[in-house]
Every structure is written in structure tokens, then in C-alpha cells.
């Protein structure tokens, strides 16, 4: 059993202390990627539900410990260099967010006895059931990690939903947003069990989305749903004072004027910046506090100079920005995007060094184009997914990695815009050498709508699809309902809602008939229609001798060579949406949706219905050789409700059924989650990648691939027993971390020599004054530079003339 396709952007990642590794929450595990190569090097597995927080324990570069929190109600402590589980804290409530402020604070002096480690958790209160509709389910709690227990009876705040906790990099403050308010707590200097942190609240008139703390000053920034960024300066001097004496002078000022501050909020001033047109998702201060990074749905990272409000941009990221993470290395940072990509940025120039990209996440499409978005390559085990930026991603299911991306439509993608151009259909021929895509441009008030059919051919050398033919409006202005390739020849069929279907042939097909054609491409070979009914689905039989086209409720059978109607069979209650021949048999499987859903199996030799079920089918997959097929069916509402009491069926809304065509009793069933928008396919077992992992050596011939609505997938052997399935583990595709390359200061100037103050004067020093480091030493942003004390010695040393040592 192979699983994969996890989201990399469900929660913010974290950099390791040396800045070379990135810890990413991927479903139930934490995957560790190399920042320099973008390849996965390890993973931390053990949680039984999605991991929501990962916190790397700061310290020296070699320290590789992290805390993770998960929805399974546990907090775990790992050594991720090995990787090994060190400790497990069970809080029994799903943790949505965790911060450990004391880790970030100044390291406690060694002579002090080690204090307990406290974490602040955002948890969901599952004890209260949904009986009260407006119950406050989110709670902010405190947890003693050293003693492994939640501190009972201490609830800092209750919110309608569990909120993400933001913490300042100094570890002094943490806060949450709650509708139009910010709640900020100050962490007590000496934390202990029941010590309640002091809290202030800041108000705004719009719903807030995100907040960030300044690393050194008392500044907090927050973004709201309208795209405004509010910056409160000097918050909490009144209520969150460290010592009374320090603030007394400031108290006088506060009485005079507090521009922009609402009501009785505890802040000195509040200023507003507005650039984003829609809500702000990301706010983060640079480590020196001079800049503020913000990002949102537009897919643009904005850098604000904090003092002046001047802006710099990283445009065209291509997808909404979700998280911005600083690394301990000042030249590296990462942004996570909604299209399941993590970009690693080289910092002052904001140049994208590497991208870690997972499977594309489902995009929200307008109603009629939902579903059917997957095309599977039977032999290689690739799946082609439509993405939001008008391209098709090829993702290897066996290796759990992206292979290629084909830009279907050359257009600039603006993530914030309404979706008007979209790829609606993707089809791949059985041998994987041809692809066909359909894109639809939606009209603006009835003008400018447009359908475009494209054929792509696989390059023989680079194994990439290149555009072969573009056909504008293949069925006039009518939409295309399906595209199917002939199993052996270079022929495809498209069926349209406009009432006709067209058979397209690649030119080498036509050339066989003796015509000389220079330019290769696809051309229409034949057009057919049946009583002007909308054609809703089309497929070729496995030997290519029969073309079945569904004309709403009946199935018409054609001879594709002569383009002659052979027979009409039917009919069903509602329009057929999918047709497929089961293997090499003469059985045809049809699926209708709508108010009267139906799964029917027709026998071609008798031109009659064999058997049918009233099931809402999401996807059908047929084997290539055998007489069986699999369907992904939605469980009826009633069934889910009855079985929901069983924990096993919790959230499971679909079943995969494997049928033999002759027999209406399913051969095997599995229940699955998130079946809506899912896909199903049979794939050929890939011996090369699996052989070494199967102990007894007989690899299954075919796999069933199931992709759920969130694009997470599972591959399993439909015929094998459970034991065999488990023995097939994930391919060991992990790459060792390359420990080469320097970063930060050392990457520019080389390693600093350890300066010994009591140095022997007679020692000859070979550093040459001609290096002239002053030319380069101060270039770049200020936050990039090592501290002045370290720079200065190197600089002054380079200026000094070296006296040749006199050694007798």
C-alpha cells in the first residue's frame, strides 16, 4: 500500500538551526527537506493525525530537536537528525497550534536549576458536543511539557474556533486574533504552573486575519480581511509593564495623544498601511525588525520598510501566499503557497532558489466543471491533474513526486481574480504518448466565451509534452463533454453538448491513405450526431472497433472506421456522464448522475442491460485485461448517518467497490474518506520501483489508485490480502543531506579565524591586505550582516599591514 499526495502547506514549516533543513508538516508525518536541493531527506512518523505545529528547539547549529503537536492530541519531542522519538506528551485534545515561548527567550543561565518547560496550546474542546450551537470550541491552554501534563483549570481564552497562536521571536509575548480583536499575553519572566499571563486586547473595526510581533520593540502588526495592515506601536506599556519604574515616564505621554488607537486600547499609536486588495494572509517582521513582510491572496510578497512605509515587491509568485518563515540563516527564508509549493528565497534579493512542490491541491471550479479532472497514465503510474494556473501537473503516484508541468494556456495567472479561464478536461492515450486538453474561457455578460481543444504529443527525447494542434471552438460554441483516445491508433473522439461528436485523426493516420501532408497535426475526420441530442460521453472499446457515444439517456454504437451508426441501446433515467468498456469484454459500464443516479452494465453481444444499481458514482475504473471494474460510490446520506456512531465510519463518505462484470455482487469493498471529487484508476504494477520492497517477490499485476477530494492518494492491490499490502512500503527515495556549502557570512567572506586575544606576536599571519574586504563587506541589507563586533575585527585586521614575522 502506497500513500501520498499530502499537503505541504497545511501548517507553517520550520527551519532547522543550521538553516539547511526545512521541517514540513505533511499529513501525519513531518517531512524534512534539504533547503539547498529541495529534496526530501527524512521524515518523522508516529503521529496518528495531522501534524499542526513543529517547533525547532533553538540553540547551536548541531542541535536537532523539535517539538511537534498534532490533532491526535499528542505532543512529541524528536531528535530529527536520527530521526528518533524522544518524548511523548498526551494532552488528549486535538492541538491546533502550539507555541513554547520560553524556548525563544534568553537561554537561562546554567547555574539556575532548569525550570519546567511550558507550552501554550490552542486546542479544540471536543468534550462539549454540538448541542449548543454557539459554543466556544477553541481554547487557549497551558501545558507543562516537562511534567507532561496539561495544567488543569487554566483556560486563558475561549474562542469560537481554535485559533493559531503567534509568538514574538523574543518569547515575551504571544497572541491570537479573535474576530475584530487581538489578544496579547505577556509571558511571565519566571513561568510556573498556575501563573496567569497578563493580557491586553486591541480592537479594530474589521475582522483580523493575522498578526506579527516585532522582534525587539513593542510593535505588533495585524492584517485584516480588507487588506489593511495595522501597526500598533508601544502596546502594553500600561498593563504589560515589566517594572513600574521604567514606564512611569511614558505614562505622561500617553495621556496626551494616541493617534489611531481605538478606545482605551493599551498602545501608543496605530498606523495603517493599505496595499493588498484582499485579505492579508502573511505578516512577518524581519529578524532585525527593519522590515515587515506581508502577503495575501494576490500572490505577491510585499516588503515594507517599517520606519518609512516604503514598499518592495516579489510579484507573480503564482498562488496565494500562506506562510512566510524566517530561517536562522539571514540569507534564507521560505514562503508556502496555496498551490502546495514551498519556495525557498534568497533573502535580500528575494530570488527563488528552490521550490518544493507537492501534488496540486484541488481548486474550486464553477459547478458544471467539477470532477473528472484526473487522467491516469496506465503504464507509468502518472496522474495528470488540472491546476489553477491553467496547466496540467504530472505526478508520479509510485514515487510521490511531481514529474512535469505542462502550461496549457499561455496566460498570466492572477490568484485573486475570479476564475474565468480553466482547463476542463484532460485525457491521455493508453500508451501515454498523446494528451488532449480542453480549456474553456467563460464569457463576460454573454460575450467572448470560448472553447479550445488542444492535442499534445510526447517528445521522444525529453519525455515532455509539446503542443501539436490547437483547435478553436471544435464544436462551434458548445462545450465538450468528453475526450477519449483510440486504444491503438492516433485517433481521438470528442463529444459535445451541442449534439454532435467528432473523430479527430493525427496526420500520419491520413498519410497512410496516400496523401502527402507536410505539417503534422490533428484534423477532423468525421462528424456524427444522433437526433440532435447532446452527446454526454464517449469511449472506444479496447480493440478500437466500436465507438460508444452516449446521447443523453441512450448509448449509440458506431463503427469508427466507416462512421456508421451500428446500434442504439438504452435507455437510462438520467443522462449518462461516463462510459467505459470493461477490459477486453463486450460489457459496457455506464454511469448516470442527477436525481436518479444509476450504474448500469450493458452487454454488447445482446445489446441489452445486464444489471444496474441505483448508486451515486463518482468515478469508474476498468481493468485493461480482466473482466472486472471498480467504482467509487458516494454513500447515501442515510447510510452515513446510521453508521456514524461507529468510530470506524467516522467521516467516511464513500466506498470503492470492485465488481466482476458478470456478477452484480461486488468482489471487494473498501470505505474511503472525502470521496467527493475523487478519482479512481487501475495502474500497472511498476516492477522496477517495487521489486526490492516486496519480500516474496511477486509484485501485483495491477494496482487500484484512489485519489480523494483533497488529492491525497492511496495505491493498493485489489486482489492481494492485507499482509501482502503492508509489506510494500514506500520506496526509499530519500536523499542524504549534502553537508556542503557555507551560508551567511561565511559564504561571502569565508570562515572567520578564531581570534585569540592573547596571541603570540611572533606568529606569522598570512592574510593579505590586498583582499580589500571593505569593498564588499558592507554591501547588502543591514539585517544580513553579522554583528559589527565580528565584522570590525576582520575589517581592521585587513587594513593592518602584516609585519613579517621575525623568527630566529
Amino acid at each position: 500500500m502506497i500513500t501520498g499526495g499530502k499537503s505541504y502547506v497545511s501548517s507553517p514549516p520550520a527551519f532547522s538551526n543550521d538553516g539547511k533543513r526545512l521541517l514540513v508538516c505533511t499529513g501525519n508525518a513531518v517531512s524534512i527537506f534539504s533547503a539547498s536541493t529541495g529534496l526530501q531527506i527524512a521524515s518523522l512518523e508516529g503521529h496518528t493525525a495531522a501534524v499542526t505545529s513543529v517547533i525547532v528547539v533553538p540553540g547551536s547549529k548541531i542541535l536537532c530537536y523539535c517539538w511537534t503537536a498534532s490533532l491526535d492530541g499528542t505532543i512529541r519531542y524528536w531528535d530529527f537528525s536520527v530521526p528518533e522519538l524522544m518524548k511523548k506528551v498526551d494532552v488528549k485534545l486535538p492541538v491546533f497550534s502550539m507555541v513554547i515561548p520560553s524556548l525563544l527567550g534568553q537561554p537561562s543561565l546554567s547555574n539556575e536549576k532548569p525550570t519546567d518547560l511550558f507550552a501554550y496550546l490552542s486546542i479544540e474542546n471536543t468534550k462539549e458536543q454540538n448541542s449548543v450551537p454557539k459554543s466556544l470550541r477553541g481554547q487557549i491552554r497551558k501545558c507543562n511539557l516537562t511534567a507532561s501534563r496539561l495544567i488543569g483549570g487554566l483556560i486563558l481564552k475561549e474562542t469560537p474556533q481554535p485559533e493559531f497562536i503567534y509568538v514574538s521571536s523574543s518569547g515575551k509575548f504571544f497572541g491570537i486574533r479573535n474576530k475584530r480583536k487581538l489578544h496579547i499575553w505577556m509571558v511571565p519572566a519566571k513561568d510556573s504552573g498556575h501563573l496567569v499571563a497578563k493580557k491586553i486586547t486591541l480592537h479594530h473595526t474589521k475582522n483580523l486575519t493575522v498578526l506579527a510581533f516585532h522582534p525587539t520593540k513593542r510593535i505588533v502588526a495585524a492584517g485584516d480581511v480588507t487588506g489593511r495592515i495595522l501597526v500598533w506601536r508601544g502596546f502594553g506599556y500600561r498593563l504589560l509593564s515589566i517594572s513600574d519604574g521604567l514606564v512611569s515616564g511614558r505614562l505622561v505621554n500617553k495621556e496626551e495623544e494616541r493617534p489611531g488607537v481605538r478606545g482605551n486600547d493599551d498602545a501608543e499609536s496605530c498606523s495603517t498601511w493599505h496595499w493588498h486588495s484582499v485579505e492579508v494572509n502573511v505578516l512577518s517582521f524581519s529578524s532585525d525588525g527593519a522590515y515587515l513582510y506581508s502577503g495575501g491572496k494576490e500572490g505577491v510578497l510585499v516588503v515594507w520598510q517599517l520606519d518609512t512605509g516604503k514598499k518592495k515587491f516579489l510579484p507573480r509568485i503564482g498562488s496565494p501566499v500562506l506562510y512566510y518563515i524566517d530561517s536562522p540563516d539571514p540569507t534564507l527564508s521560505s514562503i508556502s503557497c496555496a498551490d502546495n509549493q514551498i519556495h525557498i528565497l534568497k533573502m535580500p534579493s528575494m530570488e527563488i532558489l528552490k521550490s518544493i512542490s507537492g501534488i496540486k491541491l484541488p481548486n474550486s471550479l464553477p459547478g458544471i466543471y467539477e470532477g473528472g479532472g484526473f487522467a491516469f497514465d496506465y503504464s507509468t503510474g502518472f496522474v495528470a491533474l488540472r491546476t489553477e494556473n491553467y496547466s496540467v501537473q504530472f505526478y508520479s503516484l509510485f514515487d510521490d513526486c511531481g514529474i512535469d508541468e505542462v502550461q496549457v494556456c499561455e496566460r498570466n495567472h492572477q490568484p485573486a481574480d475570479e476564475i474565468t479561464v480553466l482547463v476542463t478536461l484532460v485525457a491521455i492515450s493508453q500508451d501515454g504518448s498523446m494528451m488532449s486538453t480542453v480549456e474553456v474561457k467563460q464569457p463576460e455578460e454573454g460575450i467572448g466565451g470560448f472553447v479550445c481543444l488542444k492535442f499534445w504529443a510526447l517528445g521522444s527525447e525529453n519525455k515532455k509534452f509539446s503542443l501539436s494542434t490547437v483547435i478553436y471552438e471544435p464544436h462551434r460554441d458548445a462545450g465538450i463533454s468528453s475526450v477519449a483516445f483510440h486504444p491503438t491508433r492516433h485517433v481521438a473522439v470528442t463529444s459535445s453538448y451541442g449534439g454532435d461528436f467528432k473523430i479527430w485523426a493525427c496526420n500520419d493516420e491520413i498519410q497512410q491513405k496516400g496523401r502527402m501532408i507536410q505539417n503534422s497535426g490533428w484534423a477532423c475526420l468525421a462528424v456524427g450526431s444522433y437526433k440532435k441530442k447532446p452527446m454526454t460521453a464517449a469511449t472506444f472499446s479496447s480493440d478500437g472497433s466500436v465507438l460508444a457515444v452516449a446521447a443523453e439517456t441512450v448509448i449509440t454504437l458506431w463503427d469508427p472506421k466507416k462512421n456508421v451508426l451500428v446500434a442504439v441501446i438504452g435507455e437510462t433515467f438520467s443522462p449518462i456522464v461516463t462510459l467505459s468498456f470493461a477490459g477486453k469484454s463486450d460489457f459496457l459500464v455506464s454511469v448516470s448522475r442527477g436525481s436518479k443516479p444509476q450504474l448500469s452494465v450493458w452487454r454488447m453481444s445482446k445489446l441489452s442491460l445486464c444489471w444496474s444499481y441505483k448508486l451515486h458514482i463518482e468515478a469508474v475504473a476498468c481493468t485493461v485485461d480482466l473482466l472486472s471494474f471498480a467504482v467509487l460510490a458516494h454513500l447515501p446520506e442515510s447510510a452515513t448517518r446510521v453508521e456514524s456512531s461507529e468510530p470506524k465510519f467516522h467521516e467516511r463518505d464513500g466506498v470503492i467497490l470492485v465488481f466482476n462484470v458478470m456478477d452484480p455482487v461486488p468482489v471487494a469493498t473498501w470505505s474511503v474518506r472525502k470521496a467527493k471529487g475523487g478519482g479512481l484508476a487501475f495502474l500497472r504494477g511498476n516492477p522496477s520501483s517495487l521489486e526490492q520492497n516486496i519480500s516474496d517477490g511477486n509484485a501485483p499485476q495491477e494496482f487500484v489508485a484512489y485519489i480523494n477530494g483533497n488529492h491525497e492518494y492511496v495505491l493498493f492491490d485489489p486482489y492481494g490480502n492485507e499482509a501482502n499490502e503492508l509489506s510494500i512500503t514506500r520506496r526509499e527515495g530519500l536523499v542524504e543531506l549534502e553537508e556542503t556549502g557555507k551560508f551567511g557570512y561565511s559564504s561571502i567572506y569565508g570562515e572567520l579565524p578564531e581570534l585569540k586575544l592573547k596571541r603570540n606576536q611572533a606568529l606569522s599571519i598570512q592574510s593579505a591586505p590586498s583582499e580589500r574586504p571593505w569593498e564588499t563587506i558592507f554591501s547588502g541589507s543591514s539585517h544580513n550582516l553579522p554583528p559589527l563586533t565580528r565584522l570590525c575585527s576582520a575589517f581592521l585586521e585587513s587594513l593592518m599591514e602584516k609585519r613579517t614575522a621575525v623568527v630566529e
Partner: protein
Amino acid sequence: MMEVPRQNSTFKPIKPKLRPKPRTPAQTPESKYWSSFKNHQISNLISSITSLTFSPTPPHPFAATHSTSLTLFSPQTLSPSSTISSFPDVVSCASFRCDGLLIAASDLSGLIQVFDVKTRTPLRKLRSHTRPVRYVQYPVHDKLHLVSGGDDALVKYWDVAAETPIVDFRGHKDYVRSGDFSPVSHEMCVTGSYDHTVKLWDVRVTDSKWVMEVNHGKPVEDVVFLPSGGLVATAGGNSVKIWDLIGGGKMIYSMESHTKTVTSICVGRVRKESGEEGREYRVFSVGLDGYMKVFDYGRAKVTHSMRFPAPLMSIGFSPDCGVRVIGSSNGVMYVGKRKTKGDNVESGIKSFWSLGQEEEKRVMRPSYFRYFHRGQGEKPKEGDYMVVRPKKVKLAEHDKLLKKFRHKEALVSVLGSKNPENVLAVMEELVARRKLLKCVENLDNEELGLLLSFLQKYTTVPRYSGLLMGLTKKVLEMRVEVIRGSEALEDQIRNLKRSVDEEIRIQQSLQEIQGIISPLLRIAGRR
């Protein structure tokens, strides 16, 4: 985790829709060859150009007969070098002697004169025809005789020195309009006449009986021997026919692609650089329909066709394949001139001589001081690793404005650029951004005028009408007040209405035609 190459994050300029490529290439190599003749016009001649003839000796000057004069042209400059105008009537035909020193010309008074080409003095006057002479020619490789034919239906074989006809060939029943000597023998000639027949004569046979006769079926306008000597091409009516004389006067092919009378034909050679095609001959024909057709009689196929704006009367093709001259009825000569190979030959010689020097040029090595003096002009060698600067995407004005989301300015800028495909591409991009109607709403009077004139021009073009018809309606709906307020805009609306009406009329008549044809197709399909 495989690394997926990062997609190009630069701004992509909008692209107009692709046009469908023709299934067959627009130009065959041969038609490309024929259209590689560079066109010139010589238009200061007086009247219809009755005949064109090339001198057989290089540099092949050519003579054009028009009105009562004969003009000689140099093929290099295409300028008249000399004019002979001592004719009593309209000159009908001219022919160079095989050494190119003398030229014989006939006129409608029945007189045939022989001139010295250099001095333009009439050397001989052959007077025997009683009616206009239409055809005169020196035999190939024969300097002493002439053959002529005229409206008196006689073909005469002359002794030039004595100014007397040796033989009178009687046999034609109508005007003799054309003729040709065999390229392989100076004793055989054909003549074509308005009595629909082409007769082959042998000058040694003096009993005035023709050797062979073929019937073209139409008054024969021109006849020409093909270079093998066994075939003859005849032009009459709107057809050109190829006859096999050795095979007993059998018709081989009839080319009927002219729509009006074919007035003149000639034989030309395709000059190719190499290969067996190097000596392929073609028949050129011109007609009153203004077309010049190139007919490949070997493959029985018209390989090239060219349209001229006037009825064409005569054609000539230089023996070195470099010049093609066509005379029209209104005194304009259309000269096609191919770039002569002379320059290339010269440069070829040069390169041959410079070859030795090139050998001496040494391969640069780091041991050689000039290696270090290589500058920016240094060309990369084959094995060199090139560090190429990433190509900058060129953005048009409207692309730059679209990049800045200044939609209305982008629309106005592209409307001013006069390329309808780009305008459509910008409009489609605006539709995809849901901004087109907003742009239309914000256009001021002048810009609206620009848009309306674009719509008026292109709304009825089928390729653009899908989007533009809907847009036109919306524009009229949204901006009706503004249009009412301005005289100029109302004018444009009137024009728009006119062009739409025109299109509707076309569509209606097309539908009528479809109505007529579709039952026929039905019947044809049933069979």
C-alpha cells in the same frame, strides 16, 4: 521529492490566436522559383505589344514590336537601347537571325524588312505579300532564308539576299497568324492559321503540299516547337494543346486553364543549380484573361499561375532563363528578371582564390598572444560553452499597460495599432479579466470613435465576428447617449449599419445558394 523546474514567472505577453495552416504548402518549389522573378514594368510604349523576341546571342537583348515601331531593350538595365520606326504600318512580328546581327520585321502593309541591329538601317525589303504579314522568322542555324505568313493565307519561304520568295506554300484557308521552325532542322516549319489547322511544311518539297496537318479545333493564335523537335504546342481559343508530330500528329494533352483566348505561348527552361531537373522545359502561355500560366508538359500540370492587370498579348523568355517579358494590350511590358548567377560565379572565384589564405589562418590557442586579445566580436566556436543572457521578453505597449492593470489605456493603445488580431487578443484578455465592459463604459468620445471605427471595419469579418457582434451590441446599448450627442459618432454608426446590412445580404444570398445545392448533395450522397 523531485524538483520541478520553476515555471517562468515573467509576464507573458498576450498572443493573438493562431491561424490555421494550409494543409498543403502555399508554394511549391517550382512556383517559388517562378515567383522569384523580380517584377519590373516598362510602360512608355505606345500601343499593344504584338510580339516579343529574344536575340539568340548573349547578352540576349530583346525586341518588342508595338505600333509602327520596334524597340530593342537591353536585358541588364531593361531600358530601350534603340528604336526602329521606319515602318509604313503597324509592326506585327520580328525575328533575330541566329547570330543576332540582323533582325527581320513584318508589318501590316505586307512588307518584310531586314535591319542591321547595330545601325538600324533597312538592308532588304521583301515585298510579295498582298495582305498584312503576321509572321516572320529566320530558321534556326540558317542565315539566308526567311519564312513568313500573312492574312493572304500564304506561307512564303524567302531568299533574303535576292529579296525573292523561293516557295509559296498554299494550303491554309484562312489567315496565317503564327509559325515556328523546328529546333532540330532548318528545313521543317509549322504554321498555325485561323482555319483551325496547324500545318507542317518541308521547305525542300516545292509542290506546296504540307507534310502533316493537325486540327486544333479553334483559330490557332500561336504555335511553337518544343525543344525535342518532336512535339508542338498550339494555342487557340482558351486551350493550349500538345501534339506529337513523330507519332502521327496525335494530341497528347490539352491544357484548358485559361478563361479567355490564349494569345501567345513560348518555351522556357527552369534553371536549377544541380540535379537532373536542370534541363526541364515549360510552356508559358498568356491570355486575354491577364493570366500567365506555366505548364509542365512532362507532368501535364500547371505549376504556376500569375495574374496581371491587363489582357496579355505576347510573351518571351530569354534563352539564358534570366528574363521573362510579357506584353500587354495597353502597351505595358511586364518584365520578370531573375538575379543572374554572374555575381555568384565571380564571388565563387574569389573564394576559390582566397581559399589558400584561409588555410593559413591559425587556430587560436592560449599560447598565442592574440588569443588574449579576443574581444566582444569574437564568434563562439562549435565546442564552446555559451553563457547566454536570458532573452528578454519583448512587451508591446498594450502588454505593458495590461501588466499595470491599466485596462482602458491598453485597449485604446491597441486600437491605435491597426492590427486587428492583437486587438482581438487584448479584448479576449479583458474578457477573461472581466474588464472589457468596464473599459467600454469609461471610453471618452474620441476613444469611442476609435472603437466604433474598428467595429465597423471588422464586425462582419467571420473570424472576429464571434466576439465583436456581441461587443457591438453592448457598446450601442451602453453608450447610446454619448453617440446621440456627437455627429461624428452617429456617422460611424451609420457606416456600421451599412456594413452589417451588406453582410446580412451576403448571408441571405449564401443561404439561397445553400438551399439550391443541398438537395443536389442529398441526391448525390444517396448514390
